[in-house]
């Protein structure tokens, strides 16, 4: 009997609530996509994708908790690492378009 199965209200469990919260984070990510597409500068896009990536890490972690599969946290960790790599790589690339890489 894990905490995820604890009933919250009206027959819904905590797991249900966490899935809905993950969906909320995904909706926020969709909103952030506006900045990633519109820009206007490349740095804006990188920034939006970085924030998106943080959101995705939270989504992955919440999914791991809600589905009762703690090993999913590994994926979230990998993603946090590569999100950071992506941010510093692209942001350094945007300076003189790769001239200082």
């Amino acid at each position, binding site marked *: 009997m894990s905490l995820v199965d604890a009933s919250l209200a009206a027959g819904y469990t905590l797991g249900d609530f966490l899935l809905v*919260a993950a969906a909320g984070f995904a909706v926020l990510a969709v909103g952030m996509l*506006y900045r990633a597409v519109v820009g206007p500068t490349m740095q804006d896009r990188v920034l939006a994708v970085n924030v998106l990536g943080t*959101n995705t890490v939270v989504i992955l972690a919440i999914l791991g908790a809600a589905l009762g599969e703690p090993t999913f946290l590994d994926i979230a960790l990998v993603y*946090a690492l590569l*999100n950071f790599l992506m941010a510093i790589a692209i942001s350094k690339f945007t300076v003189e378009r790769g001239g*200082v890489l």
Partner: protein
Amino acid sequence: MTAAAATETARVWLVVALTLLGLFFSFVSMVGVLRLPDVYSRAHTASQADTLGAGFGLAAVAITVGLAGAGFKSVLLLFFIFVTNPTAAHAIARAAFEEGIVPWIEGDDRR
């Protein structure tokens, strides 16, 4: 029995509260990224509000899965996010400055 049940209820509502706080701060950061005028102020939002939102969300996950074993991973994740997210924002703002993007000042009609 009742004490354990009370503890579980407290943990459940703590998870709910932390998740909602995380959603709120992520929402704030989304609004900031969408509405603030230039890349520097957006980076400010990204490094602060979003880190806090992710922190609350991951704290909720840590309480849900319990602090032994898998919960340790979410604490590690929390630490990792807290270190890397502001650094990424710094890298982006630095790149923007090196590229010569002018900061927004009052009267500028950029959005």
